[in-house]
């Protein structure tokens, strides 16, 4: 089981995370939802994601996740073109619950503008945000 909120990730107030890697000079963001999101959602039964080659825009809806009880939008932490989709989620949406930061990742995006990262939270700020929300 991974950490609740790993230090190496960026977070949004909509409860997505992004892991940034450098690949041949391009920044690639791997994107998923946080442990908090998963606890709120409960059992995930369907994940709807964009296709490879489509573009996503920071803070805009890029897909949705259906739990047993409800459907929730997914918001992109960053703008860019989708380079890879975690296709096993189509048959195994439970990966999102079981391992949200690893097997449960959703899409990888070639980052258009690294400056957008400034708008995201680090693990500490995200947890402070969660505490604030809980009050």
């Amino acid at each position, binding site marked *: 089981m991974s950490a609740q909120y790993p230090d190496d990730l960026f977070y949004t107030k909509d409860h997505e995370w992004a892991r940034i890697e450098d690949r041949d000079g391009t920044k690639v963001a791997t994107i998923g939802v946080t442990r908090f999101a998963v606890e709120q959602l*409960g*059992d995930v*039964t*369907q994940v709807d994601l964009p296709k490879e080659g489509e573009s996503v825009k920071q803070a805009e809806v890029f897909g*949705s996740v*259906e739990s*047993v*009880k*409800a*459907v929730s939008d997914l918001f992109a932490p960053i703008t860019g073109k989708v380079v890879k989709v975690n296709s096993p989620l189509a048959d195994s949406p439970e990966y999102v*619950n079981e391992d949200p930061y690893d097997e449960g990742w959703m899409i990888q995006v070639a980052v258009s503008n690294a400056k957008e990262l400034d708008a995201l939270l680090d693990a500490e700020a995200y947890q402070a945000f969660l505490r604030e929300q809980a009050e």
Partner: protein
Amino acid sequence: MRRTPLYDAHVRLGAKIVDFGGWAMPVSYPAGILEEHRATRSAVGVFDVCHMGEVHFVGAGAAATVQRLVTNDVGRLENGRAFYTVACLPSGGIVDDLIVYRLQPDHYIAVVNASNIDKDVDWFQEHRGDACDIQDRSPTTGLIAFQGPRAQETLQPMISFPLERLRTFSIATDVAIDGKPVWIARTGYTGEDGFEIFCDAKDAPALWDRLVDAASKVEGKPVGLGARDTLRLEGRLPLYGNDLSDETTPLEAGLGWVVKLDGDDFIGRDALRAQAAAGITRKLTGFVMTERGIARHGYAIYDADGAPAGTVTSGGPAPTLNQNIGLGYVPTRLSVTGTKLSIDCRGKRVGAEVVSGPFYKRGRK
């Protein structure tokens, strides 16, 4: 928010608490909705239903009053027997769906939906006949459902009453668990065999702990409202407020089997007779999704030509079936098994097909 006597127990078990019609209720425990659902199908689930209403009708005129209020035939109830029924408005619209138990010729109980208790009691009082006292004993009554294929074997060691003698839709009132009086009914809302156990509200926490403990020994679990909803939907049991309302009649809802149009008079009978004679124009219809998508309450239904056909009243995943299912009112011509429909799932038309009968039916022993 109002709390049942089991609120502290839910918090202790780590439940996620939600506002359910003004009640603070567990939607799920840490096991999660899917596991709770499976535990009920394979072993036993324990459900807090203390929020439901228990309305007693007492007196020589009790039977007459109950008959005036419900569509089913009260005359056929014997002591210790129960039936499922609805109470209707003069229009035939449904006030509530309920289970009526006959304890004695002069003592009946109606178990009604939590969100309707006040409305129901007012309605019952308004139409009360002579020699009938109507008592809302909901606040002092605890109710715990114990449902699943292993419910009987798990409950039996706690009591001396032989449960194999308790038929479906029967109630035993002379029973005790740990010295506390309980009433045990063979009723439920999951599509499984099982029991609903009435107790004094103050005895409910100890009884709950005892039942949860016994259930855990056979891989049973406490079950929240989330799985209660998926279980009842698989069993195609309607939910008031979703599938039933004061604007739908029992005939439209497929509940004609609880409406005795040729029996004694009841409120709404004339309207329902007229509707039966004219034929219903829309019907609560079950469907399975044939393409990838989950129908939810409120989504629009379309016919095969893309014309609007109705609205989803209940929908979601059916964990036992590994399908997505739903219910909705559509014109009668579209309610035929095999009819192709589509559901507007957030802007995307997703294929569905009409199916008849319960989505899930338990195996007979």
